[in-house]
């Protein structure tokens, strides 16, 4: 639709390798993600997914290769909630707004609105992180990542601690964010079904060293993906030798 009107915003990762000490953690990773796209990164535990995401966010220093990010604002959600233990839920969600000097009232209103959409309730906002359940902490962390309305979201297993009902609700929320604002998402997940439901491309990684072994484009538009299609597609993916090998099913 709005193709070629402006220079497409994108995150380009090319030929990135990474080592921790003597361990080769990532080898020759290339990928690109454009506005409005969701890419899911799946792969076995320890294959370097988090490391790749941290490199994209610039939290870990790049050793080899090139990463360029032309998005205006990038948000990151850690694998662990990492809320500040001495701040209540609302202040935790609003922290990046505070960093941008948004006035207290306004940032609390924004944080509250988003927190409620995440399924938190009013009482939760005054609680400290240790008084929240694991799933609530995760939702607060997701809200914290979304509250600035970033146009690139880097999410490290954002739904891992949630039950099925909440998951599907938050999927809806994420898709909405995407369609409305043409945000891009690079998301790590262990759940192939989740990847199938949400992403435009699934990148399959393998360990030792971490590398991308397969790319599965999914062409069906997100709103048209019903349960049936998701089950069938996931089942088909599970049959491929690459997936079986990557997840150690053979």
């Amino acid at each position: 639709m709005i193709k070629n009107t402006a220079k497409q915003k994108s995150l380009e990762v090319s030929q990135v390798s990474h080592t921790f000490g003597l361990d080769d953690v990532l080898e020759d990773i290339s990928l690109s993600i454009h506005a409005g796209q969701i890419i899911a990164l799946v792969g076995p535990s320890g294959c370097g997914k988090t490391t790749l995401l941290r490199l994209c966010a610039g939290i870990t220093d790049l050793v080899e290769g090139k990463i360029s990010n032309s998005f205006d604002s990038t948000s990151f959600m850690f694998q662990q909630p990492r809320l500040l233990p001495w701040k209540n839920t609302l202040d935790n969600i609003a922290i990046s707004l505070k960093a941008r000097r948004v006035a207290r009232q306004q940032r609390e209103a924004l944080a509250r609105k988003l927190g409620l959409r995440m399924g938190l309730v009013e009482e939760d906002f005054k609680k400290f992180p240790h008084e929240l359940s694991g799933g609530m902490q995760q939702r607060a962390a997701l809200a914290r990542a979304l509250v600035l309305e970033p146009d690139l979201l880097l999410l490290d297993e954002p739904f891992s601690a949630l039950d099925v009902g909440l998951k599907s609700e938050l999927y809806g929320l994420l898709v909405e964010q995407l369609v409305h604002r043409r945000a891009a998402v690079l998301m790590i997940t262990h759940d192939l079904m989740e990847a199938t439901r949400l992403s435009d491309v699934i990148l399959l990684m393998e360990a030792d060293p971490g590398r991308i072994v397969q790319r599965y484009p999914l062409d069906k538009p997100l709103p048209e993906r019903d349960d049936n299609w998701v089950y069938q597609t996931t089942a088909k993916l599970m049959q491929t030798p690459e997936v079986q090998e990557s997840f150690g099913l053979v």
Partner: protein
Amino acid sequence: MKLLRDLPAYLWSGWGAISSLLLLMAVWEWGNQIYGDLVLPTPLAAFQTLGQLFASGEAWTQLLITGRRAFAGFLFSVAVGSTLGIAAGLSMTASMMSRPIVTVLVGMPPIAWIVLALLWFGATDMAPIFTVFIACFPIVFVGAMQGTRTLDNQLKDMANVFKLPKWMAFIDVYLPHIFSYIFPAWISALGMSWKIVVMAELLATSDGVGAALAVSRSHLDTAATMAWIVSVVALLLMVEYLLLEPIKREIEKWRETGSD
């Protein structure tokens, strides 16, 4: 304020403490019956003497002098200990180097400091103040250093990812973490300062509760001795449970261990 709202429940929880204090009184009374008035006067006699001391204004005067000294030494150790502790925590080398020094300071008996202080400052205010300072310093220093040392990368990553400006990262992220270590150290130091100051006064000054204790000892006035001891201990308990403990609870509500 929440502090006031919680007060009744907090006081109620003090019943256990009060009953154990009463038990202590009973043991004291019993000791009096065995050893006689000269060795251990009855609690009643001690409290009567205490009442007279307060009525004459003597107790207020001496407690004020002692309190001022303890507080001066304490504040000094908080200021110097916190600053140096944080500075040492920021550098691996500095914290390694300070370890043996801290061990020496902790291991040094306070009485040795009192003697040194007497030699250095004579029988002035500075002797007890210095002794309090030097005894409290390592406690505060270690608390501040540990708080700074335990700042982890997770907190730094957090501050980075959400692009917190430097001042905000310090106020909202690093400082609360450090403070959660420093504050308990401050409290231990305050308790320590109160004990040390009496001991220093006993040997080094002519006024203050410690000096009054020395006088009552030389008069073999056990009732007055017990009265002074009671006043010192009571003041410490009051400061601890009516002031510090509630503040600590309020400040550390976010801690898992601090919650009820």
